[in-house]
C-alpha cells in the first residue's frame, strides 16, 4: 500500500516531475495531432488524387505490327465487351492528345508574352481530351466538375445537358468556331471566359509513313470546369471526341476507356483481371499481361505510396519526442533515487523489501506516464478535432496565414483521429517510460539501505 501512497507524495512534493509529465504530454499530444492531420491529408489527397479518374482505366496500345494492323482504333468493340460485365455501372471512351495553347488576332501579343515567360509559359502545353458527353457523365465525375462553382476565374457552361453548345449570344464575324471547355486554373492563367477564342496547335506523327504533320485550329471557350485536382484543372481542355478526332485527323478514335463499377472496393481487381483476359481474347488489347487495364490505384500507386511513406516517417520521427520524454523520466527518477537514499534505507528498516522499493519508483514513473499520456491524448485528440478553428484563430492572432487553403485545394485542414493509433501511442509512451524507469527503480531496490542510515 505504501508504494502508491508514497508515489503520490513524492510526485506532489517534487516539482521536477512536472517536467517529465509535460514532456510526455507534449510528445503524445503532438504525435496524435500530427498523425491525425497526416491521415486526414492522406485521405483528402487520395480523394482529390482520384479527381476524375475512373475505377478502371483501359489504355490499349495501338502499335501497328509489320503488316500495319493494330487493335481496333474505334472504341465501340471494347466498350461492348466492358459494358457486358454486370459489375460495370458505366463506361466511356476518351481520346487524349497534346497540344500547344496560344491566341491569335488581337490577343496574339499577350499570348506571346505569356508563352515567353518561363514561369507561365509552361501553361501553354495542354492535354486535349475528347469525350462523348452522355457516356462521360455516366462514367465519371465530369458533370460535377462542370457544375461546381469556379474558385478562381472562369465561368460555368450555359447548358449542363449540352455543354458543348455554342455560348448564348456568341455571334462570330466569320465561320462558327468549334467549342471547348477549359480547366478553371488554366482559364485563370490565360484570363479566359465564356466566349474567349483560343488557338491550339498539335501534330500526330504517322507510325507508318514517318511524317509529322502539324495542325492548328481556333476554338471558342464555352465554359470552365473545376475538378479539384490541380493537375487536371491546370492543363486539360475538353472537346467532343468526334471534333478532336477530326482536328487530329488521325485514324485513332480513342485513347482510353474509363470504367465505373457498382462496387469498386469489392470488385475492382477481379473485374480488372477478367476484362483484361476477355479483351485480349477478343483481340481488343495488345498484351495478355494486363498492362493495358488498370485500376485507378494502379495509376496513382507511386504518389499514394509516397504519402503513406511520409506518414510512417513522420510517426517514427515524432516517436523520438516520446522517447526523449521518457528519457527525462529516467533522469528525474535517477536523481530522485539518489536524493531519496535515506528514505529508501528507512523504508527498508521498517520492513520494505527491495522489490517493494523498486516498485515504489516504478509507480512514480507510472503516474508520470499516466498523467502525461492521458493529458497528451486528450489535448491531441481535441486539437485534431478542432485544428481548423485553432488554425484560424492562430492565423488571426499572428496575422500570418498558416494554412494556405488555395495551395492545398481543401477549404479546411483535414484531420482524422484513429482510435487505434491513439491507443498505440498512449501504450507506447507507457511502455517506453516504464522501460526507462526500470533502470533507476531497479537500482533503488539494490541500494545498501544502511549506507544511508549511518549519517544524518
Amino acid at each position: 500500500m505504501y508504494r502508491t501512497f508514497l508515489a503520490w507524495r513524492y510526485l506532489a512534493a517534487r516539482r521536477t516531475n512536472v517536467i517529465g509529465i509535460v514532456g510526455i504530454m507534449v510528445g503524445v499530444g503532438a504525435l496524435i495531432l500530427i498523425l491525425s492531420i497526416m491521415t486526414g491529408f492522406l485521405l483528402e489527397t487520395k480523394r482529390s488524387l482520384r479527381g476524375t479518374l475512373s475505377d478502371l482505366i483501359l489504355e490499349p496500345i495501338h502499335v501497328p505490327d509489320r503488316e500495319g494492323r493494330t487493335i481496333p482504333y474505334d472504341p465501340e468493340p471494347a466498350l461492348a465487351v466492358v459494358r457486358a460485365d454486370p459489375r460495370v455501372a458505366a463506361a466511356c471512351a476518351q481520346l487524349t492528345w497534346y497540344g500547344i495553347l496560344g491566341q491569335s488576332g488581337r490577343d496574339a501579343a499577350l499570348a506571346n508574352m505569356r508563352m515567353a515567360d518561363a514561369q507561365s509559359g509552361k501553361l501553354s502545353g495542354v492535354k486535349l481530351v475528347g469525350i462523348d458527353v452522355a457516356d462521360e457523365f455516366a462514367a465519371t465525375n465530369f458533370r460535377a466538375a462542370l457544375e461546381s462553382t469556379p474558385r478562381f476565374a472562369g465561368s460555368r457552361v450555359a447548358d449542363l445537358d449540352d455543354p458543348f453548345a455554342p455560348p448564348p449570344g456568341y455571334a462570330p464575324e466569320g465561320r462558327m468556331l468549334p467549342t471547348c471547355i477549359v480547366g478553371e486554373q488554366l482559364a485563370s492563367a490565360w484570363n479566359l471566359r465564356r466566349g474567349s477564342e483560343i488557338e491550339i496547335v498539335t501534330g500526330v506523327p504517322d507510325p507508318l509513313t514517318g511524317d509529322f504533320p502539324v495542325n492548328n485550329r481556333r476554338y471558342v471557350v464555352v465554359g470552365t470546369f473545376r475538378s479539384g485536382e490541380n493537375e487536371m484543372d491546370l492543363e486539360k481542355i475538353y472537346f467532343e471526341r468526334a471534333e478532336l478526332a477530326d482536328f487530329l485527323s488521325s485514324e485513332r478514335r480513342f485513347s482510353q476507356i474509363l470504367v465505373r463499377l457498382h462496387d469498386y472496393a469489392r470488385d475492382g481487381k477481379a473485374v480488372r483481371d477478367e476484362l483484361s483476359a476477355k479483351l485480349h481474347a477478343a483481340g481488343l488489347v495488345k498484351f495478355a499481361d494486363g498492362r493495358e487495364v488498370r485500376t485507378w490505384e494502379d495509376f496513382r500507386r507511386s504518389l499514394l505510396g509516397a504519402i503513406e511513406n511520409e506518414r510512417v516517417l513522420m510517426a517514427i520521427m515524432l516517436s523520438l519526442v516520446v522517447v526523449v520524454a521518457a528519457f527525462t523520466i529516467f533522469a528525474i527518477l535517477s536523481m530522485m533515487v539518489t536524493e531519496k537514499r535515506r528514505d529508501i534505507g528507512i523504508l527498508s528498516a521498517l520492513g520494505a523489501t527491495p522489490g517493494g522499493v523498486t516498485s515504489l519508483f516504478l509507480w512514480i514513473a507510472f503516474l508520470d506516464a499516466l498523467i502525461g499520456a492521458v493529458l497528451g491524448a486528450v489535448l491531441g485528440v481535441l486539437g485534431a478535432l478542432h485544428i481548423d478553428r485553432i488554425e484560424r484563430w492562430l492565423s488571426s492572432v499572428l496575422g500570418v496565414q498558416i494554412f494556405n487553403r488555395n495551395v492545398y485545394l481543401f477549404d479546411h485542414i483535414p484531420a482524422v483521429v484513429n482510435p487505434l493509433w491513439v491507443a498505440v501511442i498512449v501504450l507506447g509512451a507507457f511502455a517506453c517510460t516504464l522501460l526507462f524507469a526500470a533502470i533507476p527503480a531497479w537500482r533503488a531496490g539494490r541500494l545498501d539501505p544502511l549506507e544511508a542510515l549511518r549519517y544524518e
Partner: protein
Amino acid sequence: MSEAIVSARGIVKAFQVGDRSLEVLHGVALDVGRGELVGVMGASGAGKSTLIQILGLLEEPTAGEVLFEGRSAWKATVAERARLRNERIGFVFQFYHLLPELTAVENVVLPAMIGRSFGAWRAARPDLVARAEAALARFGLAERLKHRPAQLSGGERQRVAIARALFLDPPLIIADEPTGNLDSATGEKVLDLLLTERESRGLSMVLVTHDERLAARCHRVVTMADGRIAGDARTTTARAAAR
C-alpha cells in the same frame, strides 16, 4: 530470563574497503532475553552500531548466525526478513530518520502501511490513524499531528520516531544512541518516555549509549572494545527487578 528473542552466535563482520577486507566484529556472541533491556557501551568505532544492525536484521553477518525467535534469520527469504523487521522489530535511530514528505501521523502509521495491501489498509485506516494520533498525544504531540518533520524540534522528531517504532507493538526495540543528537534535558525526557513504554509493554530492548547513568538503568550492560565483547555485567537494576 527465559529464552532469547534474538541471539547472535559467532558473529564476524568484515567490510570490503577498496580491495581490502576490514574485519569489524571478530566473533561476537550475544543473547537478548525476552523483556530484557540490554545496554551496549564502548568506545567509538568499537562496533556497537554494526552489532545491533546485525541483531536488527539490517545487516548480514559475514560469518555466524542470528537466531530471531529461535529461527535462523538469514536462512529465511528476503520477504520473511522484511516481515520480521516490519512486525517484530522497532528501530530508533540517532538521527530520527523520519520521511520528510509525510506528516507526523503518517510517519507513525507507515509501518502499518508497509505491511498491508491496499484493501487491508483502506479497511483499517480510520482505526490505525486514531491509534497513531492517540500515541502522539500521549507523547505530548497532540498539537503536532499534521506537522512535517522539518517543522518539529529534535526532541519532537525523536518522539515521533519512538511512536513509529512502537506502533506495531514489536517485541524487540533496537535503539542506537537515541539521545545522541539531543541536549541532555531533552534527551532525558525522551529517554524516560522510551523506557517507560518499554517497561509497561514488557519489551526487549537493545540500547546503545555512551551515558553511564543511562547504562545503570539497564538490566545488563555489554561493553564492546575493538569488535569484541569485553564485558557483560548485570546491573543493580536487574537485581532489583529480579527481586
